[in-house]
C-alpha cells in the first residue's frame, strides 16, 4: 500500500457514494440496537427499493444522542430523525428530496453545536465494519505519513508537542510515556490498548470501538512504530460483544489491505494486533493487573516500579494507553501537534468524550473541548435535569471519582481543576444527580462496587472497602452513630494511603467528596434518622412498647 493507492481507494469509495442522491445513516450502536435499529435499517432499505429512490442505507456507529434513539441521519441534508420506528420508514423515505418529516425531526441544535468532534469525527458517519469508509475519511493517512515521512523520534515529538494526556483517567502525558518506552532497552516491545472500561455509567470506549475501530488500530500502529514494537494487544471486556465483533472484522480488513502485518506500506515496519478478552474484573483496567491477565495469570496488580514501560508484558517494555488516547493519535499526526494544543485549556489539551447519564435529558455521548464549563455540558448540551427537578451533584470519575455539588458547576473541565475539588476526570463517566438522589446512598453504591471488584490481594482494599460498606449501610439504614462516622473517616485515610493499586487508593473518594460537600446529609441520617431525599430504608427505631394481652 502506497499513499497513491490509499488515495485511490478513498476517491473510488467517495465516487461510489456520490452516485446516490441521499445517504440514510442508521445508528447501530448498542443503545439504538437495543431498540431494533437493525430491523429499521432493513425496512428502510426495502422501502428505498420499493419507492425506487436513489438512496444508500448505511449502518453506522453511535451518533451520540442515545436518549433519542433509534437515530437516523439523512445526508447531504443533515436531517436528524429521532425515535424512528420501522413503521416510520415509509414516510422517511418518501420525504427524501422534499420537506423533512417534521414530527420525527430532532432539533437539538445546541446539543451538537457546542461539541467539538475529534475522537468521534467518524462516529455516525461511517460503517464501522467497512475499512474503505474509514479510508475515505482520511483513514490510515496518518500511519502512512508516519511510516514514510517521519522518524520514530519525530512521531514522539509531535505527540509531545500536542500535549495530549492519557484519557484513561490518570492524565499522564502521552508523549512522555511513549518516549520512556522508546528509550527502554530490549528487542521485543509491546503496545497494549486498554479497553477494560468498567466504571458504572461509562461507555465512551465501547462506543469508540463500536463506531470507529480502525481509528484505534491506526493509533496503535503509529505508537508501535514510535516506540519500536511489532506486536499489539487490544484488551477489551467480554461484556462488549458488539465491540469485539467489529474489532475482529476491522483487524481482518486491515490485514487484507496490508495495513497490518509484515512490511506495512513497503517499509521494514511489521505490526499485528491480537484481541484479548477480559473476564469480568474491573481491577484488570489497572495496567499491571491487565498485563497479568493477558499473560494468563490471575488479574491482580503488583507494586510499581518496575513500571510497564520498563518491564511489562512478559517482562518486556510495554506501552499501555487507553482506547480514547489511541483514537486521538491519527488526527494529531495529520494536523500537527500545535493544532491539537490550540484546543482546550492551559494544561489539558484537546477534547474529552463524556458519557452523560443519570438525571439528565439528553443521555448519551458528547465530545467537548477541555476547559468547557461543567454547567455548559449539563445544561446546554445535556438539556438539564428533566421533570422540574433541581440538580444536586455531578459525579465524575466513577468509583475513583467524586461528587461535584451544584454550586461548583462553573469550573472548567480539566484534569487539574477536577482534582482540586476532590474529584477526577476519570475515563469520562458523568452521572447527574437531582434532589431525588441521596448522597450517602450514592457513596454506599460506589463502595459496594469497589468492595465486590477488589481483587483481595492487599489488606486495606480487601478488608477496608468491606468495612466502609458496612458502616455506610449502618448509616443508610438509620443505625449509624457519630462514632461510626469517625471510624469511616479513619478508614478512608488508611485505605487511600496504604492500598497497593489505584482501585484501593481511590475507593474512598466517593465517600470523601460527599462528606466534604454533603456532610449534613450524613448527620441527618445519623442524628435525626431521616433520609432527606427519601431514598434510604431507615429502620423504625426500636421502642420499648409492650403489648398488653387483653
Amino acid at each position, binding site marked *: 500500500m502506497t499513499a497513491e493507492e490509499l488515495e485511490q481507494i478513498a476517491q473510488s469509495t467517495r465516487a461510489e457514494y456520490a452516485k446516490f442522491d441521499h445517504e440514510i445513516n442508521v445508528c447501530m450502536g448498542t443503545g439504538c440496537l437495543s431498540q431494533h435499529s437493525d430491523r429499521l435499517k432493513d425496512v428502510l432499505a426495502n422501502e428505498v427499493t420499493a419507492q425506487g429512490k436513489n438512496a444508500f442505507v448505511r449502518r453506522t456507529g453511535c451518533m451520540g444522542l442515545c436518549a433519542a434513539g433509534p437515530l437516523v441521519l439523512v445526508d447531504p441534508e443533515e436531517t436528524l430523525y429521532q425515535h424512528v420506528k420501522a413503521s416510520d420508514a415509509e414516510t422517511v423515505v418518501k420525504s427524501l428530496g422534499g420537506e423533512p418529516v417534521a414530527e420525527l425531526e430532532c432539533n437539538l441544535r445546541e446539543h451538537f453545536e457546542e461539541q467539538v468532534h475529534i475522537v468521534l469525527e467518524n462516529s455516525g458517519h461511517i460503517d464501522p465494519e467497512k475499512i474503505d469508509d474509514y479510508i475515505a475519511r482520511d483513514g490510515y493517512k496518518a500511519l502512512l505519513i508516519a511510516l514514510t515521512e517521519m522518524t520514530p523520534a519525530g512521531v514522539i515529538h509531535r505527540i509531545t508537542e500536542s500535549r495530549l494526556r492519557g484519557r484513561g483517567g490518570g492524565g499522564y502525558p502521552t508523549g512522555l510515556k511513549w518516549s520512556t518506552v522508546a528509550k527502554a532497552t530490549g528487542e521485543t516491545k509491546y503496545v497494549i490498548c486498554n479497553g477494560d472500561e468498567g466504571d458504572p455509567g461509562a461507555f465512551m470506549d465501547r462506543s469508540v470501538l463500536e463506531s470507529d475501530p480502525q481509528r484505534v488500530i491506526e493509533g496503535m500502529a503509529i505508537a508501535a512504530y514510535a516506540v519500536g514494537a511489532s506486536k499489539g494487544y487490544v484488551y477489551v471486556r467480554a461484556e462488549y460483544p458488539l465491540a469485539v465483533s467489529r474489532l475482529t472484522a476491522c483487524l481482518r480488513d486491515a490485514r487484507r489491505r496490508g495495513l497490518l502485518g509484515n512490511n506495512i506500506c513497503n517499509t521494514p515496519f511489521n505490526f499485528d494486533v491480537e484481541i484479548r478478552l477480559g473476564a469480568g474484573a474491573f481491577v484488570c483496567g489497572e495496567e499491571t493487573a491487565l498485563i497479568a491477565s493477558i499473560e494468563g495469570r490471575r488479574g491482580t496488580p503488583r507494586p510499581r516500579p518496575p513500571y510497564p514501560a520498563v518491564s511489562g508484558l512478559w517482562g518486556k517494555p510495554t506501552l499501555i494507553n487507553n482506547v480514547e488516547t489511541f483514537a486521538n493519535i491519527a488526527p494529531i499526526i495529520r494536523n500537527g501537534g500545535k493544532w491539537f494544543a490550540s484546543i482546550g485549556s492551559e494544561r489539558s489539551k484537546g477534547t474529552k468524550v463524556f458519557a452523560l447519564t443519570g438525571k439528565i435529558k439528553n443521555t448519551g455521548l458528547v465530545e467537548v473541548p477541555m476547559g468547557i464549563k461543567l454547567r455548559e455540558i449539563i445544561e446546554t448540551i445535556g438539556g438539564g435535569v428533566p421533570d422540574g427537578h433541581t440538580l444536586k451533584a455531578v459525579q465524575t470519575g466513577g468509583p475513583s471519582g467524586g461528587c461535584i455539588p451544584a454550586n461548583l458547576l462553573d469550573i472548567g473541565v480539566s484534569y487539574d481543576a477536577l482534582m482540586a475539588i476532590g474529584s477526577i476526570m476519570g475515563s469520562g463517566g458523568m452521572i447527574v444527580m437531582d434532589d431525588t438522589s441521596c448522597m450517602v446512598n450514592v457513596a454506599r453504591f460506589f463502595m459496594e462496587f469497589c468492595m465486590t471488584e477488589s481483587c483481595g490481594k492487599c489488606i486495606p482494599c480487601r478488608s477496608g472497602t468491606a468495612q466502609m460498606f458496612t458502616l455506610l449501610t449502618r448509616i443508610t439504614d438509620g443505625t449509624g452513630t457519630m462514632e461510626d462516622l469517625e471510624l469511616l473517616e479513619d478508614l478512608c485515610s488508611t485505605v487511600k494511603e496504604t*492500598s497497593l493499586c489505584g482501585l484501593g487508593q481511590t475507593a474512598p473518594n466517593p465517600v470523601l467528596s460527599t462528606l466534604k460537600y454533603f456532610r449534613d446529609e450524613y448527620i441527618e441520617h445519623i442524628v435525626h434518622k431521616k433520609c432527606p431525599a427519601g431514598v434510604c430504608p431507615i429502620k423504625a427505631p426500636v421502642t420499648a412498647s409492650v403489648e398488653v394481652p387483653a
Partner: protein
Amino acid sequence: MSADVDVKTLTIDGEEVSARAGQTLLEVARENDISIPTLCHLDGLSDVGACRLCLVEIEGSNKLQPACVTTVQEGMVVSTSTERLQKHRRIILEMLFAERNHICSVCVSNGHCELQSLAQEQGVTHVRLPYRNPDLAVDASHERFTVDHNRCILCTRCVRVCAEVEGAHVWDVMGRGISSIVITDLHDEWGSSTCTRCGKCVQVCPTGALFDKSKIGSDHPKYPDFLPYLNLMREAQ
C-alpha cells in the same frame, strides 16, 4: 572495592547506613536492627507487597512505599515509624482481626502467632471495627495437616512456598475481594489433592491457619527460618 559492587548510602530513621545497589529497604533496615513490621514477606520467598505493613515514608515523596520491594537509592531519607505510619499499621491489623474469626485463646498458634505478636508490638489493644464473623470452613481431610480458613490472613506465603520452593503449586487463591480464600488444586479437599506432604506451607504460615494435627492441644511453634538456608544450599549445588 571491586568495580562491580555498587554501594549506596542512605539514612533510615536518622541513622546513616550503607547498602549494595539492588537491596531492598527492608533488607538494609533489618541488617541494621531497625525493625519494620511485615506479614506477607518471608526471607526465601518472592515479595508481593500485599500486607502494606512495611510501608515507609521517603523524603520527597508523598506516597508511602513498601519497604519489601523498594530498592535503595543514593541519599534516600527514610522514616519507618512515624505517627502516620503507626496509625495506618494499627488500622490494618484491626482490619485483619475483624475480617475473620481470630480468637487467640482457642487457637493452636496462641503464643506463637505473627499476627498476635505484631498486634502486641504495635499496641493494638482493642478492635473498633465491626467483626464480620464470616462462616468459614475447616478442611481436615489431609492425614497430617489442617487448614482453618478462620485464621487465614491471605498472606499467600503458602501459595508462594509451594510454587517457588517445593515446585508443586498445590495452593492458590480463589475468588476475589473479601471472599478470597486459599485453595488446594482446583478447590479440591487438601487430603485428595496433589499435595506432596512436605509441610513447608505449614511452617511458613504466620498464624494458626495451617497446622500440624499432631500438635493440637500442645505448643505449636513454627520454624520458617529453614527457607533461606535451604535456598542457599540449593544454590551451592
